[in-house]
């Protein structure tokens, strides 16, 4: 059965950043240079072709864009400047919008304004709610204890609520990703024990991002900096998330007022270092666009991500310092500002690039399962071919 191509698809894809894909004439240099492309998962060439032809079903059921970490070598090499690396990035954006059942992600990618309105709207609601809560129950000049402007048990509950909302959306989207790639996209039923066999790849890739480290650079003598920084940023983020969701009470204040609780705070400081380094590194590289090709093109959604994170980290640090210095009123104000940024950040996550925190390790895991299936399938068809002969 012939597949209908969709020449209109290219217009849709423009909005996700794949502006140059039609320049590709399929020489395959990109797949040849890629450190991760192999016989089972061949990219970016095949994905470029599917995009050009608008084979939507094929694109939404493939894991290949997630197997690329955008080292940018393909784009450097491309004889037609079709920018395969950026195309893979755009595909990931498109896939995020496809996995997202609410349509919010798609809206964000299509219009900058909608994303800014969403973020500002949630920020205002959060601010209003927290000030209302604080002024109606607590003391503006108290930071710790029961009389506090924002008591930590309340913040804990508030965080958990927002966190659950985020997890709710992420889980459904991740489930859709699994459904597209492992049910809709494959012709045979995948046995359950393969999922068990490869389960370890999920935490392994989540915590090490080992594949990113094996991206090659032209400068072989040095460590691959984007990987180290990316890993630091991610670990910082995850640690912070765990602290906020589980240990906010210990984290926010000690039993006898504002003192350092090293058992918890050491993690907080480490996370802050990871996050700050990452943010500074990304901002600098995206501004000077010289060293690594993957920072050359920045989608509007990428800037929203970086700026929000910068504001969160800065307000978090200021709030911490003010609190330790005993300037409680200002600590309270900055705390609210901090949360004004945190809440839209968390509620934006399932609909943005940051969702790759979940999608990418999941893709590594599902790809390991698929690889097993494909290798077996190939071996089987080969043996059949020989016996027919």
């Amino acid at each position, binding site marked *: *059965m*012939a*597949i*209908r*191509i969709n*020449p*209109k698809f*290219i217009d849709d894809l423009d909005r996700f950043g794949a502006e140059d894909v*039609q*320049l*590709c*004439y*399929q020489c395959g240099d990109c797949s040849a240079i890629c450190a991760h492309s192999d016989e089972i998962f061949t990219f970016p060439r*095949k994905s470029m*072709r*599917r995009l*050009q*032809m608008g*084979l939507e079903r094929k694109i939404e059921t493939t894991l290949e864009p997630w197997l690329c970490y955008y080292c940018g070598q393909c784009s450097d090499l491309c004889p*037609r400047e079709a920018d395969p690396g950026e195309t893979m990035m755009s595909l990931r954006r498109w896939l995020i919008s496809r996995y997202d059942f609410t349509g919010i992600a798609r809206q964000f990618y299509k219009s900058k304004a909608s994303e800014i309105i969403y973020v500002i709207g949630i920020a205002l609601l959060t601010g209003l709610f927290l000030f209302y809560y604080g002024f109606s129950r607590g003391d503006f000049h108290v930071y710790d204890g029961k009389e506090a402007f924002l008591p930590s048990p309340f913040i804990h509950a508030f965080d958990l609520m927002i966190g659950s909302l985020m997890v709710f959306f992420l889980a459904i989207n991740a489930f859709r990703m699994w459904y597209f790639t492992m049910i809709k996209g494959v012709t045979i039923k995948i046995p359950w024990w393969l999922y068990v066999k490869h389960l370890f790849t999920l935490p392994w890739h989540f915590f090490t991002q080992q594949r990113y480290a094996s991206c090659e650079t032209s400068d072989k003598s040095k460590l691959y900096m984007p990987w180290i920084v990316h890993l630091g940023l991610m670990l910082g983020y995850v640690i912070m998330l765990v602290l906020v969701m589980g240990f906010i009470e210990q984290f926010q204040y000690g039993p006898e007022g504002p003192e350092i609780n090293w058992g918890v705070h050491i993690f907080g400081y480490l996370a802050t270092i990871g996050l700050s380094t990452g943010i500074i590194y990304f901002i600098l590289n995206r501004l000077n666009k010289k060293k690594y090709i993957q920072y050359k093109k920045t989608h509007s959604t990428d800037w929203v991500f970086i700026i929000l994170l910068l504001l969160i980290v800065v307000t978090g640090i200021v709030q911490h310092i003010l609190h330790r210095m005993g300037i409680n009123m200002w600590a309270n104000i900055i705390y609210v500002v901090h949360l004004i940024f945190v809440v839209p950040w968390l509620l934006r996550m399932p609909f943005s690039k940051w969702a790759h925190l979940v999608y990418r390790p999941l893709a590594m895991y599902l790809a390991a399962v698929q690889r097993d299936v494909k290798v077996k399938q190939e071996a089987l068809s080969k043996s059949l071919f020989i016996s027919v002969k």
Partner: protein
Amino acid sequence: MEDCRIGVYICNCGTNIAKTIDVEAVQKYVSTLPHVVLAHSYKYMCSNPGQEMIVKDIKENNINRVVVAACSPNMHERTFRSALIKAGINQYLFEMANIREQCSWVHDDNNEATEKAMDLTRAAIKRVELHEPLESMTVDMCPASLVIGGGIAGMTAALELADAGYMVHLVEKEDHLGGNLVRVDLTAPYLYSAHDLLTERITRILNNKLVHLHLNSKVTNLTGFVGNFRATIQQQNGQVFEKPNEVQIGNVVVCTGYKEFDASRITHYGYGKLPNVITSFELERMIRAGRIETKDGKIPKYVAIIHCVGSRSMEFHAYCSRVCCMTALKYVHEIKSANPQSYISDVYVDMHAFGKGHEDFYRRSSEAKTLFLMYEKNDRPVIRRGDPKDDCEMLIEVNERLSGEQIEIPADLIVLMVGMEAREDSGEVARLVNISQDKEGWFIESHPKLEPVATTTEGIFIAGTCVAPKDIPDTVAQARATAARILAKISKGKIEVDAVYSEVNEEICSGCRLCNKLCPFSAIEFNEEKKHSHVISALCKACGVCVAACPSSALKGRHFTDAQLLAQIDGLINTFQCAE
């Protein structure tokens, strides 16, 4: 016969000959043969010292026959003949023995190769004894030319000749000049207007008194030979045949062009049945009319362009038509600028972007968001009508090579890039001017690389798309090349005819006319009055077919007489009597 004094020279050709053949043994051996006055071997006979050695020996030792055992005569016969001329003896008193290409290069056994070299040299010695001095003749060159075909090639050649101050008869069978280019709107890759290219030329032709334009005309007869042709030009106005016009010319340029492939021959493209499947020339007409639309007047949302229609297929024409790829890309730009909302699929086999500016043009077409889809040349797309629920009128089913997918391409308008083929009357033209055609009907050039516009008939030149498919720059270059060749001949005034040709002994000739039919160059005429055949020496290429065929041995090949050839054979099989 005067005393026969032969000088033999054996070339080492560096080591090319000497490493296989014992050159000194050959030299010693041939010096013992009768009439051989001297024999030398030398490192490079073709070098200046080598030639000077021959000149010196002729002068000092009264040598009157020369044999050089070296490479192929194709390589250096001319070199050594000029040495003879320099020394003051007739150039035909010379023979070459090929002991390189036909001996040292192809044999491993040194002893056998040496023996063979001796045999070959001996055969040449035996032959050269019977060589006669021959003189080449000259004939006058008529400075007027005939150009057949009034397209871009014919007009360019005619103008080039007329601008040099010589008369040209330009014959065009249509009632207007311009040829196939008249039907084209813009040209690839720089999007120049074809109309502008033509009008400048047409105006100049019409205003040039040296160009005699014959519209609605055909050349019906051509006789004579290079420098002295007579052509009959027949004009036809409607059904009325005007009085034939006979002209005297020295050279002929044939630029009769091409015709487009008939797309209805490929049945599964549905051309002629599906209303919105059109050929590239029909699209040109739409573009010139200023509106690209479907038969029911709608703007097509999806346009598909199919390449290689009739070209590059074993079933129709195996060759590439050369211009269609870039023309298709030109349509991409023209369609996009007319209907920016249209989606264009370009269904191609290979993108041949060989010329100047072509690769860049291809890139710009990609930037215009054209979807390029590749098919295998022997697995052609199939066109069918779409269902009412589809948002397109037709669907093209094709096995897309770059993705490996069997796909359907939506289309409202399908443009078939029809290839070029030889005109149906090309055979007639070929017979008229006595040139050959290849199996596809294209005229054959005398050498594809070194003589691209000359033919095997002297004085007949070919240019443009009657030779093979080509684009405008190549066509114009060829047209100018024919003019350059002709002007070189005209400026010389006379043409030298090689002294080697066949002759009819009129006493013996019975007038059977067998040779007239066999001659591949139409060089033999029949004299009705005297009832015997006659060789036009200017046309004869000395192939020898007539000599072999003549039942009464009335034909003699000059420089290839029976006696000379038999002597050579005698020499080869060693009937020399050493005691003689």
